[in-house]
C-alpha cells in the first residue's frame, strides 16, 4: 500500500528502472563477469587455525610450479601505523585493515589470508597454494565473548589496551573499548517504577549473505598505474583503502565499478583488491580473483554476535522511567564492532529520563566483522523491544499503545544526546495499530508480535553531474554504485526538475576518473545525498537554460520561466524553447549544457519502522512459521515506491532469517562448520508469506522532496517482532537467537 503522490509527475511513480533490461537479459556485468585477454588467476592461501603464530612461510616450491607468476605474503605489504579512515573513529583502522588482508606475525581466525598466488590458470594457482609450506605455532583460541572478557583469557593483540575505562588499564586485553551513555538518576527512576523487567539476550554472528561473491580484476601497467574492475559499495573508498594498504598513490589507480550483486554493508571494505593489484604489479599481467562461497563466509562480513542485559522500569500508566543496558559485541579478529551505534540506538525510540548504557567492543578469533544494514542496531532492538513487549504484558497494556506513550518526537532529546528533528515514529505506530493485520484473528499455536526500530541515516560526500545531450535527453552521473534502484530514483528527481520524461534521462554510475569523489552507497544515503546534488545540478541547468533563452529572446532573465521542460516567456513575447532546441543550439549560447554539484549534506532524516509479525509454532518440533508480516516505515518521501517497498521487504526478511535460522556455527577448534548456503540457512521463497508494506511519509525538511534513507531501518525490528510473536503463540520468551527449532522445542519442554 502506498500513498499516491499528488502534484508530482515523476516523484512517487514506478517507472521501469533504467538498468532493468540488462538485468533481465543477463547482459549486466557484475564483479566476476570481467575478463581481459591473458589475465592470470589469483587465489588466497588461508589459515587453517583460528589463532597461531606464523613461524615461517616457504613458497619456493610453489613459485617453481610452471605457470605460477607471483606469490605474495604479509611481508610484501607496508607496515602501517594506527590510522583511521575519514570520519570513522571506531571504524576502519588501516593498520588492522592491512593485517586482515594478509596476516603478519599472527593468524587470528580460520580463513585469515596468509599468502596469495597468481598463475596462468585457476587450477595451477590452487595447486601452487597447496604447496606453500607455512609453519604455525598454534595458540589457544578465544571463541566466546565470555572467554574473551575473562581476565586470564589469551590475548589476541598484546598492544590492545581498553579505551574508555575509568582508569587506564595496566594490561592488554581483548576488550578494545568501553562506551557509556548515562543520564538522569537511576535510583530515582527505579523508585518510581511500578514494573521492572530484566533479561539477558544473546545473538550469533550473521552474514550479509549477498549472492555475488567478492570479485576483482586488477591490471597494473609498467608505469605503476593500475585499473581495478570490482563490485563494491563504493569504488572511491575501494581506491582509497587499496592504495593505502599498498602504499600507492590514489591518483594512480582507477576503479571501474561493476554492477554489484548485493552488499548490505559487507562490500564497504576491501579483501581481494590489494592482493590482485599487487600480484598484477609483480606479474606484469592482469589478475582476476573471485572468492568461493566458503571464503565469503569464513573471511568476510559478518556482523557481531552479542550478549546484552537489559533492565527497564515503567510506571503503571506506561511511562518508561528507567533503563539499564549492558552490551558486548563481538568485533572478530580486530577491534571495530558496531557497539557505538549499538549503545546509541538501543533505547533511542523512547523518551526515558534515567538511563545507563554500557557497551564493550570485544575481539576474538573469528572473522573481523563488517558493516551490515543498520550496523549494531538490530541486535540491540531484539533485546530492548523484547523487554518493552514484556513490560506491556505486565502492565496489561497494548504493546503499540505503550510505545506511543513513550515514543520520541520532534524536539525530544535522544538518549545519546542531540534533539530529534522532524521524525515519523508515532506515525508508524499509529499506522501499525490501525492496520487490519493488527486485529486479524489468530488460531491455536499462533501468535502476533510487534517491534520498532530506529536508524540515524547518513549524508556524506557527494558529486553529481547532469548533462543535456543535443537531442534534449540527459545524463545523470553519480559515483555511487546502484544496489537497489537508486539510478531510477535519481533519474526521477532529475525528470521532475527538468520536466522531461524519466526515460529520456540516462543515469550512470561513473568510475573514479570520470566524476568527483563520492562516499559509499551505505548509510541509506544515495537517494538523500546524491538526490540533493542531482536536484541542485538540475536547478543550476534550468537557471542556465533560462538565461540562455533570455539571451536568445533578448529579454531580461526575470521574464523567462521553466515550465514542463521548456523555457517560456512570462509575457508570451516568444514561442517557448524546448530542452532539445536549447541543447542543439547551445554552441551559440555559451557551450554545452552541464552542471556538476558537490555536497556534504547535513539533515539525513532519521528513519523509524514498526513491524507486525504473525507466527505459528509446531509444538511437536519447535518449527516457527511466519504466517503474515507487515512493515510500516517512514520513508520521508518515496521517490520510487517499488524500491522503497523492496528495501522494507528485503530488510524484514533478512531480519526474519536472523531471527529464525541464520548463525555462524564453529566447532570446538574454531573452524566454521557451516560456510555454505546449505547450512547457513537464509530464508527461501517457500519459507515466507508476502511481506506487506505501509510507506509512511513524514517529509524530511532537509531534502528537496523530503527523502529519508530507507535502506537500513527495515532490518531492525524483525527479531524482536518474531520473538514477541513466538511468545504470544507459546508463552515462552526466546532470549537467544536464532530461534531455531532446537531452541524453541527446548523452551517448550521446559514446562
Amino acid at each position, binding site marked *: 500500500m502506498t500513498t499516491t503522490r499528488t502534484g508530482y509527475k515523476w516523484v512517487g511513480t514506478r517507472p521501469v528502472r533504467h538498468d532493468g533490461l540488462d538485468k533481465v537479459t543477463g547482459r549486466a556485468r557484475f564483479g566476476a563477469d570481467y575478463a581481459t585477454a591473458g589475465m592470470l588467476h589469483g587465489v588466497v592461501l588461508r589459515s587453517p587455525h583460528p589463532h597461531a603464530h606464523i613461524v615461517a612461510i616457504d613458497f619456493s616450491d610453489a613459485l617453481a610450479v610452471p605457470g605460477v607468476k607471483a606469490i605474495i605474503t604479509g611481508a610484501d605489504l607496508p607496515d602501517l601505523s594506527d590510522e583511521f579512515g575519514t*570520519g570513522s*573513529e571506531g571504524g576502519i583502522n588501516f593498520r588492522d585493515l592491512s593485517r586482515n588482508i594478509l596476516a603478519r606475525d599472527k593468524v587470528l581466525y580460520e580463513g585469515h589470508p596468509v599468502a596469495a598466488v597468481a598463475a596462468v590458470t585457476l587450477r595451477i594457482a590452487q595447486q601452487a597454494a597447496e604447496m606453500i609450506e607455512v609453519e604455525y605455532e598454534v595458540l589457544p583460541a578465544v571463541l566466546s565473548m565470555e572467554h574473551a572478557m575473562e581476565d586470564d583469557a589469551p590475548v589476541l593483540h598484546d598492544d590492545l589496551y581498553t579505551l574508555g575505562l575509568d582508569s587506564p588499564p595496566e594490561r592488554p586485553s581483548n576488550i578494545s573499548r568501553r562506551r557509556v551513555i548515562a543520564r538522569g538518576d537511576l535510583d530515582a527512576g527505579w523508585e518510581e517504577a511500578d514494573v521492572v523487567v530484566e533479561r539477558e539476550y544473546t545473538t550469533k554472528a550473521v552474514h550479509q549473505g549477498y549472492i555475488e561473491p567478492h570479485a576483482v580484476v586488477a591490471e597494473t601497467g609498467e608505469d605503476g598505474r593500475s585499473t581495478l574492475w570490482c563490485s563494491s559499495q563504493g569504488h572511491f573508498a575501494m581506491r582509497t583503502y587499496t592504495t593505502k594498504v599498498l602504499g600507492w598513490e590514489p591518483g594512480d589507480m582507477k576503479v571501474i565499478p561493476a554492477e554489484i550483486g548485493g552488499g548490505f554493508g559487507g562490500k564497504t571494505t576491501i579483501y581481494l583488491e590489494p592482493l590482485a593489484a599487487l600480484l598484477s604489479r609483480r606479474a606484469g599481467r592482469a589478475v582476476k580473483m573471485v572468492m568461493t562461497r566458503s571464503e565469503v563466509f569464513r573471511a568476510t562480513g559478518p556482523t557481531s554476535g552479542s550478549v546484552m542485559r537489559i533492565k527497564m522500569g515503567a510506571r503503571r500508566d506506561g511511562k518508561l522511567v528507567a533503563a539499564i543496558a549492558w552490551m558486548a559485541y563481538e568485533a572478530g579478529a580486530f577491534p571495530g564492532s558496531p557497539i557505538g551505534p549499538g549503545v*546509541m540506538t538501543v533505547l533511542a525510540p523512547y523518551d526515558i529520563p534515567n538511563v545507563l548504557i554500557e557497551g564493550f567492543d570485544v575481539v576474538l578469533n573469528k572473522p573481523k566483522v563488517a558493516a551490515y544494514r543498520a550496523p549494531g542496531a538490530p541486535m540491540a532492538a531484539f533485546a530492548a523491544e523484547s523487554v518493552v513487549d514484556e513490560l506491556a504484558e505486565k502492565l496489561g497494556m497494548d504493546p503499540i499503545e505503550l510505545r506511543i506513550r513513550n515514543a520520541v518526537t520532534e524536539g525530544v532529546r535522544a538518549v545519546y544526546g*542531540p534533539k530529534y528533528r522532524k521524525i515519523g515514529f508515532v506515525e508508524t505506530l499509529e499506522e501499525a495499530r490501525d492496520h487490519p493485520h493488527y486485529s486479524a484473528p489468530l488460531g491455536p499455536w499462533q501468535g502476533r508480535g510487534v517491534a520498532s526500530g530506529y536508524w540515524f541515516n*547518513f549524508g556524506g*560526500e557527494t558529486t553529481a553531474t547532469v548533462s543535456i545531450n543535443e537531442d534534449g535527453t540527459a545524463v545523470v552521473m553519480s559515483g555511487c554504485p546502484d544496489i537497489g534502484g537508486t539510478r531510477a530514483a535519481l533519474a526521477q528527481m532529475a525528470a521532475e526538475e527538468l520536466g522531461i520524461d524519466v526515460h529520456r534521462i540516462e543515469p550512470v554510475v561513473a568510475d573514479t576518473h570520470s566524476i568527483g569523489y563520492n562516499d559509499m552507497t551505505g548509510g541509506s544515503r544515495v537517494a538523500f545525498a546524491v538526490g540533493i546534488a542531482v536536484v541542485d545540478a538540475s536547478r543550476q541547468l534550468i537557471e542556465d537554460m533560462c538565461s540562455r533563452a533570455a539571451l536568445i529572446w533578448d529579454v531580461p532573465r526575470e521574464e523567462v520561466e521553466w515550465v514542463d521542460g521548456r523555457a517560456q516567456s512570462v509575457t508570451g513575447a516568444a514561442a517557448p524553447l524546448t530542452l532539445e532546441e536549447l541543447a542543439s543550439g547551445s554552441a551559440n549560447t555559451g557551450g554545452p549544457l552541464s552542471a556538476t554539484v558537490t555536497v556534504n549534506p547535513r539533515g539525513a532524516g532519521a528513519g523509524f519502522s514498526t513491524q507486525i509479525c504473525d507466527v505459528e509454532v509446531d509444538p511437536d518440533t519447535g518449527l516457527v512459521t511466519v504466517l503474515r508480516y507487515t512493515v510500516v516505515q517512514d520513508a520521508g518521501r518515496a521517490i520510487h515506491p517499488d524500491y522503497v517497498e523492496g528495501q522494507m521487504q528485503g530488510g524484514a526478511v533478512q531480519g526474519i532469517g536472523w531471527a529464525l535460522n541464520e548463525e555462524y556455527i564453529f566447532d570446538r577448534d574454531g573452524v566454521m562448520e557451516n560456510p555454505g548456503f546449505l547450512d547457513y540457512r537464509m530464508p527461501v521463497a517457500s519459507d515466507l508469506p508476502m511481506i506487506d508494506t505501509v510507506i509512511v511519509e513524514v517529509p524530511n525538511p532537509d531534502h528537496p522532496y523530503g527523502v529519508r534513507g530507507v535502506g537500513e531501518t527495515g532490518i531492525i525490528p524483525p527479531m524482536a517482532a518474531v520473538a514477541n510473536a513466538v511468545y504470544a503463540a507459546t508463552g515462552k520468551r526466546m532470549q537467544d537467537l536464532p530461534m531455531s527449532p532446537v531452541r524453541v522445542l527446548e523452551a517448550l519442554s521446559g514446562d
Partner: protein
Amino acid sequence: MARIFFPTSLQQLTGGTEECEIEASTVRELFARLEERFPGIREQVASAAVAIDGDVVPGALLEPLDPDSEVHFLPAISGG
C-alpha cells in the same frame, strides 16, 4: 553561546562537567576554546563524530556554529 554536551567518556577530561556554553563561530574555534578549558580534550573530540543541532557533520572543522547551536560528540556511525 553554543551549548556543548560531553558524553560520559569525555567527562573524565571535563572533571565531570556534562555540558557547558562556549562562544565559538566554527567547530575549529570550538575545539580551541575547549582545549583551553579542558586540556587534552582536543585530541578526543577531533576523533569523534560531531553532531550539530542533531545532525552528524562529517569533517566538521570549518562548519559554522550558530549562537544557539547544540554540539554533541558521538561515536562514528558507519552505515551498511
